[in-house]
């Protein structure tokens, strides 16, 4: 730390991080670049003659998409928590027969490629009229998060001291009350983690949006960007400005839940 080798490592670390995050910087840079400078060679490394045109275009054209994405994200979080928390409580504390099998099924469920789920959902939504609807998209997006959520919650709730459960029981609380008044409040941190991830995945989803909501009036921001690119739009500052705004949930997740994120990634992959 105080000696030179430590300082060298910090310097090298900064350089490596800079290289790694260059594409992110470039996205921000391009989002401020004027149209006439866009095809300049060599490109400007800094947005010296910056413009807000791109962001103005976002405000003009992309707000409805952003709104839909927020709704879909929040809906996915709600549905995920509703399904996953009771299940995890049961798996962690109530020792259901067949719980091991269910956990196994959940592990497998996470490995199913999205394109396959999309095709199945398409067939079902077509016959039930849920194609191109926001609730339909919420349901599909929640499949990205539910297995993960149950497994993370189970790992967390297994760590709740048995004495706490016992105390609730002595006070005459049944399973439902224990769940609601003891387990859920104690699990606050994992609820935050799971909610953030569920929101981010729903927010980022492209495959379900493009297959199940491609013709709808309420389309999410991923499709907003996709149409931007697809229309052979040469307004790359607007595209990148939208991308910057679409990255906001990522930034929030990283700032609020930094330590939980790393924990979420490694949970299970490595035994602690």
């Amino acid at each position, binding site marked *: 730390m105080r000696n030179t080798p430590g300082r060298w490592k910090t310097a090298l670390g900064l350089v490596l991080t800079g290289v790694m995050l260059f594409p*992110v910087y470039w*996205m921000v840079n391009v989002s401020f670049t004027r149209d006439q400078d866009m095809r300049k060679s060599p490109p400007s490394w800094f947005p010296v003659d910056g413009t807000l045109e791109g962001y103005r275009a976002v405000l003009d054209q992309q707000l409805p998409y952003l709104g839909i994405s927020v709704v879909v994200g929040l809906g996915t979080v709600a549905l995920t928590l509703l399904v996953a928390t009771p299940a995890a409580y049961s798996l962690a504390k109530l020792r259901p027969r067949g719980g*091991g099998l269910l956990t196994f099924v959940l592990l497998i469920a996470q490995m*199913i490629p999205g*394109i396959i789920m999309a095709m199945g959902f398409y067939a079902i939504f077509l016959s039930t009229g849920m194609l191109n609807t926001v609730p339909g998209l919420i349901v599909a997006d929640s*499949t990205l*998060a*539910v297995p993960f959520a149950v497994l993370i919650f189970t790992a967390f709730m297994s760590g709740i001291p048995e004495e706490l459960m016992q105390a609730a029981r002595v006070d005459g609380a049944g399973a439902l009350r224990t769940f609601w008044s003891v387990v859920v409040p104690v699990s606050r941190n994992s609820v935050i983690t799971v909610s953030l991830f569920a929101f981010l995945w729903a927010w980022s989803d492209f495959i379900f949006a493009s297959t199940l909501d491609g013709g709808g009036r309420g389309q999410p921001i991923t499709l907003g960007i996709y149409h931007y690119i697809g229309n052979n739009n040469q307004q790359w500052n607007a595209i990148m400005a939208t*991308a910057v705004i679409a990255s906001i949930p990522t930034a929030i997740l990283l700032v609020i839940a930094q330590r939980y994120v790393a924990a979420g990634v490694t949970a299970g992959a*490595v035994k602690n």
Partner: protein
Amino acid sequence: MNRVSQAPARAAAGGRRAAPRPRSGQWAAWAFLAPVVIYLVIFYAYPLYRNIELSLRDYTVRSFVQGDAPFTGFANYAKILGDETFGPALWHTTMFTMVSLVFQFVIGLALAMFFVKNFRLSATLRALFLVPWLLPLIVSSSTWSWMLNSDSGVVNAVLGVLGVEPVHWLTSPDWSLWSVIIANIWIGIPFNLVVLYSGLQAIDPVIYEAAELDGATGWRRFWKVTFPLLRPVSAITVLLGLVYTLKVFDIIWIMTKGGPSGSSTTFATWSYRLGFGNLLPAFGPGAAVGNLLIVTALIFGLIYIRVQRRRTLS
């Protein structure tokens, strides 16, 4: 999409601590499980079932709506196996997966080794390294698209300074697959870094001290001590990476749509193109390709679960 949302296989082993189960408790236990079970049946099992059914029938747009498509057995599978796209798609999928995994792992491990000894700002920088993994794929893919643009992309501008002729990254069949591989490596490094980092942290420093006394330092220590001790975590990292790389769709579709002329088509994008990419959808063959993909993913997925369980139990 949740390429890295692997979750605790540890929890699976948890059920083994079989203490007596009170009979009365079972009702409550399953009542709490009921929502997730119903959910899994309706939103996982049923779509999967529909997908298998799609692959075994001859669907047209009309019969798709009316639901009276004739049963054709494995005709769709025969069709895709004989399709001229099959060979290239298999090759691209293999290349995409293997090259991505090797680079993600090597770079991730090198970075993990770098970060494992704490220094000033190391925690912050490590957190920043997560950014590529957390960004929505549409954001990273479109950013890479513009960076790799033949005429105005920053990558060609830098290569130009070095005296290299402009490369037609996304528009030439020779480079399109490499372009999506590069973007995918970038996105996958953080996952490898984080998991391998925690694996390195778990190695007891005493072992290093002992190795040092035996004169093992630097590279020797890495190959003789660190790498063997890290093998279980490495296996898990690679297997999970494999399962998640096999199904990568967004990046390729957004950057190249699998083209030009099929040069970056993998099974995932092929399946999508068959089902949704044409005016006349071919749901049957599309579902058949998807099912091949799922079988491959599940094989490696099961190996992963096995490795993980053995580790947890030992």
